[in-house]
């Protein structure tokens, strides 16, 4: 990747800032840099200091040593920032939006599992909920690398035809033009993202930068997150009718290596597979499901998937809240906020009954 990565960190606690800078440096590729936002050392005119925080930040981030920025990483609570008293992450998000710079925010307070899935629904930026600095830094650098990859590849891919359709642009970026219709289905039910679509003409000058930012958020927050087009480990195992633990065995995963996702934000520690390629591998040889396929290819002792609600049933689907394999009968899908393309993503019935009023219909 030719683009050099620069991460700008917003953190108002000095000790945490120093720890996070070290952790980020550990994961950055060679040539990558971390610049901590130090409000005490920034020269601003008296006039600029009277502006709204988001406008001040926009001006500051447009200048060295920050510009050009690959990714902003910001604590959600920045209220102790010198010269920016009471600032919250919202001001940084707004500045990032004006500059078309991707941003991740984080909350270092350990969150419960409930918080993890609810918090993840915030739009317009990436939310990292890891409580461990090392994990947080690893995730942030993963995001930075992904956005850098998108930013470097997009200019050569985007022609007049692709400019008309974010789905086509993303399909081209992922090297899977055959999945453009499926990708388009991820925009259905995702109304929050509509306001973020860059309108060509109004923002012509930095359109590629803006569309790169938009596609990155869409990929991270929707397509990679909700199994349908791509599947994570639990969803892949469930879909293939293989017990999750057995699917984790390297010999089993090697059977599906051609389907491994290697595009932007690909994470070796949390692999994902192209569901269509997985399906084609199984069906091309006439097997009814993935279990038959791996039993023939690897070993006969591989166990089938089980629905976590009723172990007598094969799973087949993935519960986005419990992160467990679930059967069709013991789950609910088609909720208005689920992307239409995420047809393997469901909510287990007991979880739905517990959270029903908050989850919607």
């Amino acid at each position: 990747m030719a683009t050099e990565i620069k991460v700008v960190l917003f953190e108002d606690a000095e000790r945490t800032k120093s720890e996070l800078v070290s952790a980020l440096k550990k994961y950055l590729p060679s040539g990558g840099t971390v610049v901590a936002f130090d409000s005490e050392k920034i020269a601003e005119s008296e006039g600029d200091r009277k502006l709204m925080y988001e406008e001040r930040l926009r001006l500051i981030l447009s200048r060295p040593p920050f510009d050009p920025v690959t990714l902003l990483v910001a604590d959600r609570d920045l209220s102790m920032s010198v010269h920016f008293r009471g600032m919250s992450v919202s001001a940084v998000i707004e500045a990032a939006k004006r500059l078309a710079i991707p941003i991740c925010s984080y909350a270092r307070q350990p969150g419960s599992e409930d918080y993890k899935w609810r918090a993840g629904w915030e739009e317009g930026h990436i939310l990292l909920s890891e409580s461990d600095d090392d994990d947080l830094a690893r995730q942030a650098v993963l995001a930075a690398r992904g956005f850098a990859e998108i930013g470097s590849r997009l200019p050569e891919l985007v022609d007049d035809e692709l400019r008309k359709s974010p789905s086509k642009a993303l399909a081209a970026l992922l090297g899977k033009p055959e999945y453009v219709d499926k990708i388009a289905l991820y925009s259905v039910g995702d109304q929050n993202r509509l306001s973020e679509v860059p309108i060509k003409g109004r923002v012509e000058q930095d359109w590629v930068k803006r569309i790169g930012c938009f596609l990155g958020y869409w990929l991270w927050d929707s397509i990679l997150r909700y199994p349908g087009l791509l599947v994570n480990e639990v969803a892949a195992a469930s879909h293939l009718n293989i017990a999750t633990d057995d699917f984790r065995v390297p010999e089993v995963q090697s059977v599906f290596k051609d389907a491994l996702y290697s595009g932007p934000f690909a994470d070796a520690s949390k692999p994902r597979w192209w569901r269509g390629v997985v399906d084609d591998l199984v069906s091309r040889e006439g097997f009814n499901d993935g279990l038959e396929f791996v039993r023939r290819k690897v070993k006969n002792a591989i166990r089938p998937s089980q629905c976590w609600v009723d172990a007598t049933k094969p799973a087949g689907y993935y519960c986005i809240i419990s992160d467990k394999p679930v059967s069709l009968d013991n789950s609910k899908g088609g909720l208005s906020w689920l992307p239409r393309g995420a047809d393997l993503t469901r909510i287990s019935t007991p979880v739905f009954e517990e959270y029903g009023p908050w989850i919607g219909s």
Partner: protein
Amino acid sequence: MSKTILPTKLWAAYEDFLYSFQTAVEQTSGQVFSPDRPIASCFTRSGNATVEFKRCLYLKGLRSRRLSGSKRLDLVIMAMEELERGTGEHDKEVWTLRKSTVQLNYIVVADGVGRLAQALHFDFDQAGQRDHPFFHVQLTDELIAAAECLVGHVDFDIQPPSERSECYVTTRIPTCDMTLASVLYCLAADHFGGAIFNQFAQEVLSIEDRLPPLRFDALKKSVDTSPLHFKSVHWFAHMQST
């Protein structure tokens, strides 16, 4: 039983077509309800090289110019199709449509009562059915049974027809090749028309090519033999060899 895994392009063509149809219905302020199951799960293995597709749709508030404002036109659709895997040129996998039955129930709703206004089914079987036109529509008075798509969405009590009509149950009318996609296409023309139909037709143009083609060898041969005459004999060409 675990779910059947099929090539993505096969079920994705159905998914895309149905989604386009739903979008068109919603543009006319109608609603489409279907069972809470992904399209891919509507395909089940029915033989070594065959799969069966089954899906019902409930269309609520279908646009109808003839109906007075106090009434509503609903439509229940039950589609059953059988697909067969074969081998084409260069040993390429090819899926074709062996059978298709699409049942329709038109229901007129007024004052909390639903009256079955019209019931029919389109039918096709690659092997041909004795004494049936190859592709045909049959007018009936049969309610679609156990339609999953209705659960939780019906706001009326259904009133069955008071008198059974012998005419209804025996009329089979030859048609062109009607499948689920063709039926939905015709419904879009009938009930949406104009700009919405044009947009739908444009959208599904590329999807049509991805849907499995039908096999109708005897009929094709018959029409090819005398292409300038649409004779009734064509519709029973499959019986010439029986």
